[in-house]
């Protein structure tokens, strides 16, 4: 063979050998192993009425990426901020159409009842029960129960909305009011004197009602603290009760004698005016009520402190809940596994919970967070450096649970109607509660 032919032969032989190597099954296996180490990039979408949790989740996603333990590479969470009342409407419409669903969904606690009707939750939300059950005991049950249907859990609460009493010590001192008022009844006695001077212990929404008015929401907070409720754990209507009458009676008497100041809407412009003009020297509220202060009265930083709420002398809890938002995974999401990985990493671990507080100021729902000395030593600058988490740590173990029902929206609508009648003294508290309960009972029968 001449040189050219040998070169040609070697070229052909070499090519053939290479071809055999490349196309052999073992070669495929090696290539697959190489390819399997390539992670899937996931961009999770979220529908919510606020954007802070999306930012929080995006930061946790970066941590997960840096840790390298996930089989996913998370892009920042893309949040679509929608008005509160429209989130369930938009989601259910998308779920009905079966398209354009988000991966993560914010469910305001009072809107969860819409997912309970005909057990829609089972059809449109991912059941988280089996994943959460192993660690369920580590969480406050009152943070999980409101997002459950038939014992199955569908969302994780983002904020443990414990209620305390916000107050201005300097105003209390000037008016000769003790720093800690133990009972609401005691507050009513002091309030008559203080109200005459144009100062009030809180504002109460007395307007027409509606989604953002806070009318029924505020009453429910007092009702829960008193130990009552609208529904019990089996969904039975229990609104017509002594506790409900006592809670409403407190509000009516407080408005009548000037202890409480009537405003059209909670968190609305008139509520803010009461705060800014100094008529409001205190206010009961959940942990997020702090934003009412920081947004409407930043100049009052350092003037406010937190203390436990007064209690009902006839019994109940030292605290209550007002609002809350759970985060769920849409069943139609194409990234259920990734969404759960991010959600569980962020919400089910102590580090994530504490980080959530640091970034959003929403209280943790994990019991162990409230035993962490570093966490409890946090000093809130708006409250003059008060270590307010120590107060919440005392309140957290003994708080009521908001028992949900598919008829929750009907109940709040009935309460909006009857509460305004009671506040305007057109009905007694007993008559108003009875009428509200009767209206809900009628709807439940229909």
């Amino acid at each position, binding site marked *: 063979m001449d040189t050219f032919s040998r070169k040609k032969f070697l070229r052909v032989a070499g090519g053939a050998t290479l071809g055999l190597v490349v196309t052999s099954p073992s070669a495929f296996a090696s290539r697959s192993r190489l390819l399997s180490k390539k992670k899937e990039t996931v961009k999770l979408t979220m529908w919510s009425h606020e954007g802070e949790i999306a930012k929080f989740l995006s930061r946790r996603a970066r941590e997960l990426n840096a840790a390298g333990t996930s089989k996913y590479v998370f892009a920042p969470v893309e949040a679509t901020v929608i008005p509160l*009342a429209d989130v369930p*409407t938009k989601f*259910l*419409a998308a*779920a*009905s159409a079966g398209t354009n669903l988000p991966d993560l969904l914010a469910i305001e606690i009072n809107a969860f009842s*819409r997912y309970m*009707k*005909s057990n*829609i939750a089972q*059809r*449109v939300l991912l059941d988280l029960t089996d994943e959460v059950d192993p660690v369920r005991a580590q969480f406050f049950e009152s943070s999980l129960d409101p997002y459950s249907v038939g014992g199955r859990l569908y969302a994780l609460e983002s904020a443990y909305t414990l209620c305390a009493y916000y107050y201005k010590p300097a105003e209390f001192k000037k008016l000769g009011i003790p720093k800690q008022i133990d009972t609401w009844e005691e507050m009513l006695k002091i309030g008559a004197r203080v109200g005459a001077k144009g100062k009030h212990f809180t504002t109460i929404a*007395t*307007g*027409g*009602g*509606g*989604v953002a*008015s806070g*009318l029924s929401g505020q009453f429910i907070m007092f009702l829960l603290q008193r130990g009552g409720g609208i529904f019990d754990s089996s969904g039975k209507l229990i609104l017509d009760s002594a506790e409900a009458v006592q809670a409403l009676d407190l509000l009516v008497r407080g408005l009548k004698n000037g202890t409480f*100041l*009537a*405003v*059209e*809407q909670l968190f*609305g*412009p*008139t509520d803010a*005016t*009461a705060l800014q*003009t100094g*008529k409001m020297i205190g206010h009961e509220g959940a942990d997020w009520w702090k934003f009412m202060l920081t947004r409407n009265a930043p100049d009052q930083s350092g003037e406010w402190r937190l203390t436990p709420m007064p209690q009902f002398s006839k019994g109940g809890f030292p605290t209550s809940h007002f609002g809350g938002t759970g985060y769920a995974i849409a069943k139609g999401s194409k990234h259920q596994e990734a969404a759960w990985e991010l959600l569980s990493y962020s919400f089910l671990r102590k580090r994530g919970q504490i980080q959530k507080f640091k970034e959003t100021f929403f209280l943790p729902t994990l019991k162990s967070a409230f035993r962490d000395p570093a966490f409890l030593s946090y000093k809130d600058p708006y409250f003059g450096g008060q270590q307010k988490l120590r107060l919440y740590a005392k309140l957290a173990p003994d708080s009521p649970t908001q028992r949900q029902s598919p008829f929750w*929206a*009907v109940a709040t*609508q009935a309460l*909006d*109607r*009857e509460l*305004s*009648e009671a*506040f*305007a003294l*057109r009905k007694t508290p007993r008559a108003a509660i009875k009428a509200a309960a009767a209206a809900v009972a009628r709807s439940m029968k*229909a």
Partner: protein
Amino acid sequence: MAPYLFIAPFFLLYGAFLLGPTIFSLWLSFHSWDGITPMEWVGGRNYTNLLDDPTFISSAKNTALYAVVALCILAPLALLLAVVLNARTVRAKDLFRAVYFLPIVLSPLVIAIIFILIFDKQFGLANAALRGLGLEPIAWLSTPLWAKAAVIAVIIWRYTGYVMIFFLAGLQNVPGELREAARVSGASQWQEFRYVTSPLLRPVTAFIAIIVLIGAAQIFEEPYILTGGGPADATISVAQFVYREGLTNLNMGYASAASVVLFVAIAFCTFVLVRVFRVGREL
């Protein structure tokens, strides 16, 4: 074939976005449906339940009130403003037109916030004025009667300028020589308006009456944002009832029944107005 193809887009869109949903809504009104699970036939039960629902009855009465106020107060006020603005002696007409038209372009949320502040019992401008006159403040948004008045005031404030524009356009189409001839013949301003302007304005008036009726019957934003339909359902409209039942309580069939009732009521009233104004007939 070509002419049909040219008019097809309208009918396709009309069918898809108006006729189709209307027929579906009628069909839905005989069912119970939450939007996700399968529909359940209930026959006329939704309609009979409406008759026993005190909230629906309140909403129907309120909506009728809003429609009557719109026809009897808002429209005549708009006409009066239009007549005044059409006068030769008025200067800066464009400025007035813009000012009167402005409320309709404002966001309903902005309007609601402003009027909540105006009508607030503690801090509101309205009560500050009353206190200045030595009168007792009124709980505008917490008293059924005054809440209705507040909502009506906002509706009149918001839509009068918008309706005025239509009347103004109609007035400007009335031939000047006819009015001049009437004046020369010794007619007073009122006689000129009654016997010359008003008859020529009839088609525009008929159009305005019908759109004002339909608009008022479908009112939603003002009561929803200002009072949430309260206090005690004193201001709730049928449109808000439909929204609440359909989207909040997920009773789609029940909400559809209410919307069908509203549709029938509006259609009947529109028919009456068409007969009253003799639309399509000679003067």
